[in-house]
């Protein structure tokens, strides 16, 4: 009788332990999956941020390669819009507008994403816009530049 009670208790203990262990395992698996999703999303977002920063830096600080590419835009190797550091050249902007979106996207090395580039006056008035307006997850960076001897904001949005 007593031995039976003891074994019954041991089995109950085992079941309780199993239930607790199962709950913890489920919790760990669920959390692990959640981490994987969060880290994946985070990596994608960080990558997009870095690409955006690098692309904007390239556009507003570099005059491109060749530096007078605006004279023959279809032969451009690297697109840059600056006449000097953070001074945007109006002729390069005009040349950019006349380039096809796909060509520019490939040239900037961001063909996996879509982008929209615009120059705005500091009061918000749009001076030019190029690309496809975003309708999804967007990483947007605004930089201060000088355009046509006025202070302006260069905004680059990357999305997919």
């Amino acid at each position, binding site marked *: 009788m007593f031995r039976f009670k003891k074994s019954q208790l041991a089995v109950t203990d085992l079941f*309780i332990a199993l239930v607790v262990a199962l709950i913890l395992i489920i*919790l760990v698996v669920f959390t692990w999956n959640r981490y994987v999703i969060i880290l994946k999303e985070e990596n994608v977002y960080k990558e997009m941020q870095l690409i955006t920063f690098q692309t904007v830096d390239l556009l507003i600080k570099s005059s491109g390669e060749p530096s007078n590419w605006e004279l023959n835009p279809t032969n451009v190797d690297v697109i840059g819009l600056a006449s000097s550091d953070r001074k945007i050249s109006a002729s390069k902007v005009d040349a950019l507008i006349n380039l096809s979106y796909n060509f520019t996207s490939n040239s900037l090395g961001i063909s996996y994403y879509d982008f929209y580039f615009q120059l705005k006056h500091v009061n918000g008035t749009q001076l030019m816009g190029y690309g496809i307006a975003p309708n999804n997850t967007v990483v947007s960076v605004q930089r201060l530049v000088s355009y046509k001897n006025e202070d302006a904001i260069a905004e680059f949005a990357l999305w997919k």
Partner: protein
Amino acid sequence: MKMQLLNLRFGNKANKCLGNKAFVFSLDIIVAVVVVVSILAASTFYVAKAGSESVTNLHTVRVGSDVLALLDHDGILDTLSIENIEINLNRVLPINYQMRTLVNCIGGDQIAVETTDIFPQDRFVGNGKRVFVTNTSKYCIADFSIWLK
């Protein structure tokens, strides 16, 4: 009687050595569960926290660099005037940022132009500098500190 025979009674005078078994089992489970849940909670917190701070900070520094570049291009830094620099800095600086600038010039008198904001202690402060030559041929270094409001 039953519990005594199962050696699980707590605080039994006759069976002191074995009487705490049930309590120890419960305590063991509770400690184990608390440890596991704590580890999960801590890892969730750090995974959530290990976010985009570094990239945001990078952008903050670049905004400061842009502002000084614009002030330099517009010839505002050349004036070495606190009022002039401060007015134009507030004009171009995005509204969600605050910035402090210190200009030191060599090749003449050393001039310090310092805008007046106080450093925050509770958030990231980005720093940088820009070297420029004034139209009176003074070599100057503009240091900036920038932070989010």
